[in-house]
């Protein structure tokens, strides 16, 4: 079992439904977010194009946050999901510093570090992460890369794709179809 997320930038319209759905689903405090949308523009008018990307924790195979965590609060569970155990987190912020994706934030009231969980609580019930299930363009796919018949495996086998900050060597598990 190896959970991955695949996001088709050709379909994304940058509406941020993924952001608000996550906020509601996971009680993300106001002013913070576990996922966000980035726009990068290339070229000069009128030879110009841009890309929208819904970004979040990349649930890296080689996760620097897990390596740097002094207490073991940041850990990897079955399926490769990187989680934080709030009770074990001392809020030192080492993981925040080490993350090349800026995916973590200190919870302003509870003190621990917080981030995307791939909606593990929904996966346990056989549901998709909130961001994936709400997306009006259906540009987000979620599934098991170990299963050759899954949508995500098929998409990655047939479509051109990229990951963010590959040079960091983190082996991220959020892929972008380009």
């Amino acid at each position, binding site marked *: 079992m190896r959970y991955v997320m695949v996001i088709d930038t050709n379909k994304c319209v940058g509406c941020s439904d993924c952001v608000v759905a996550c*906020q509601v689903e996971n009680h993300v405090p106001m002013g913070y977010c576990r996922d966000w949308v980035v726009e990068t523009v290339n070229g000069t008018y009128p030879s110009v194009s841009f890309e929208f990307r819904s970004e979040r924790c990349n649930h890296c195979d080689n996760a620097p946050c897990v390596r740097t965590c002094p207490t073991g609060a940041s850990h990897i569970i079955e399926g490769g999901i990187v989680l934080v155990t709030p009770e074990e987190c001392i809020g030192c912020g080492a993981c925040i510093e080490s993350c090349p994706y800026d995916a973590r934030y200190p919870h302003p009231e509870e003190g621990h570090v917080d981030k995307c969980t791939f909606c593990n609580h929904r996966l346990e019930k056989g549901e998709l992460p909130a961001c994936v*299930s709400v997306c*009006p363009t259906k540009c987000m796919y979620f599934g098991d890369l170990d299963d050759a018949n899954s949508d995500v495996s098929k998409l990655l086998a047939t479509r051109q794709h990229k990951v963010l900050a590959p040079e960091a060597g983190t082996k991220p598990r959020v892929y972008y179809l380009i």
Partner: protein
Amino acid sequence: METTRRDFIKISSLGAGGVALTSTTIPLSGIFGKKKPALDDEKLTKIPTYCDICFWKCAAWAFVDATGKIRKLEGNKNDLLDRGRLCPRGTGGIGAYYDDDRLKTPLVRIEEDGEQVFKEASWEEALDLVANKMKEIKEKHGPESFALLKHGSPGKHFAHLFQAYGSNTIAEPAFAQCRGPRDVGFKLTFGKPPGSPENTDLRDAKCIVLIGSHIGENMHNSQVQELSDAIDKGVSIITVDPRLSTVANKSKFWLPIRPSTDMALLLSWMHVLIYEELYDKEYVEKNTTGFEELKKHVRQFTPEWAYPITDIKPEMIRKSAREMAISAPSTIVHPGRHVVWYGDDTQRSRAIAILNALLGSWGRRGGFYFSEKMRIPKYPQPPYPKPKWDAHTLSHHFPFANHGVTGDVIKASLIEKTKEHHVKAWMVAGTNLTKSVPERAVIESAINELEFLVVVDTMPMEITGYADVILPECTYLERYDQLRNSSWRTPSVALRMPAVKPKYQSKPAWWMAKQLGERLGLQDYFDYEDYEEVIKWQLEHVGTSLEEMKHLGVKNYDRRSKNLYMDEKATQKFKTPSGKIELYSQKLKDAGFEPFPVYKEHERPPKNYLRMIYGRAPMHTFSKTVNNPYLNELKNENLLWINPRVAKKWNLHYGQKVWLKNQDGVISTFPIKVRMTERIRWDSIYMVHGFGHNNKNLTRAYSKGASDTKLISKILTDPIMGGTGLRGNFVTILTEEPTKNIES
């Protein structure tokens, strides 16, 4: 009341005895307090609703916990409009309920120590006051002099009250400030407007042509979903826009046109389709009238003619026209929605309709389907009295205005403009008039002359500041409303019922209408205790029940008519005078207008001015969602899009706060931050509509960004139907704060 100056009052200016409304901000931990685990759906109750954050009306479920709190909203998977996926506004719709800036009690304007203030009032007191004013206006001037300016669900309840009362002086910005020209243009051509939702078969389209329409930024849910499906199937998109919009970026052809010259491009496309013989000959022969005249008319409009006008190279015009023809009839030249641009908008919509006719896409798979809605019987009521005059009387100078024209109702309230039909009082329900209608100065003058103004809203929008009485409406999550009856590929009904009790003292619009009706002796028009009875009765007449609908939320039905598309073997009858698709419009000719669209040059920006273009952001609806705590998190201000080369000339830097001044010297109330981007032409600026709120009681929205509407003081009127063209305004940039001009 004399025609004294009606001061704009901040709602917190309560008179003695009133309790100042606090505007607490939502705590960081969100609206549910600390230490809440992620949601467990099994412990939540699902209540059906349909969304009210925009006009698309997606069916949804409100999830309510054991303590009676709404925890989240999700789309209804059985709804063909949203297929279980709400847009960001729908998902964030719970913020409309939790927004603590909401209107909480009825408020009444009083004068205290020479100052006008609002005083909290009981419902009895407020409703008595409104009903007495309605009686007084009726006696003094006739009921027609009390106008209703409305939008959406609340508007429908009050339209019923007003018609029972004897006034059909009713208008909504949705016509003259939005889609009127398109509906009229398509009706003249095909005998039918595209409707809402539009009957565009995007799902199966092979080519989609968008003229300034920015699907994906206008988050019309089904259209965004179907566009995305079409992208999966390899659709080719052609976008005409001076800005690299979200959808322009996904297009095979982006035509970065010089603003205001779309008509020239459309005419040259017709030229190419006809003279390269790419049009659907059989379809045109069988279904249309006026082709030979059209052929003669567009002969001169070559791509070479259009090039210096539009900045689009002839080769690009030809290539894109051929692309449309290759995919025809599964090619949609999209009618758009907000199309009041340059005052020749009905004619531009006609040009779009004619292109579709040439491509044979009306009534074809992947083009325009024949939509159908339910026949829901009207709850029994006496017939409405016939008013002596109505909104149409006020707009007689616009022969094709088939809905009330907001501007004419407003102008009929100005003494010097009015001869016989004088509007003396308004109810404004569900529309923030100073942000939805241009020409702020005219609106303010009209309001000053009114004898009475009552405003119904959920939020302290700017328009409430001018009111004599404010009635706080509860949100859609707290009320019953009309059944949703959307036109679509197949008909359906959807139920909206209260998920929770109304917060504060707020009440549903149906209740207010009934209460006022009873006070006016119109109880026969409101023969029910609760609107639930109306819904129940109607549902039983369409073969279901309230009980069933509580479980389903939305019920889909089979079509009554067989054909979703044109029956190729039969002769199609169109609801036009000739029974055919009218390429040539005798009706327009008879009314003194051009029977074919023609290109007219529009004014270009003067030196040191840029054309002001505005549009939508996917997380907001008009000006009404900016204060929603969830949606405000996504976008809390608009930015000034400006080409980097222009920004350099003006010596601007990213994030710099600037003020805008238009051609008439109107200055933005608040500054707007500069966003240098290559996505916008050098002769234009762009901003998202709906920002720059000036009511402090909208604590999150107040002073954030600039209001495009305020900067629209010049109107290019569509003589055919009264549309208010809004794109003829130009702005220059002020880097120093102008004289303090923040309104009260």
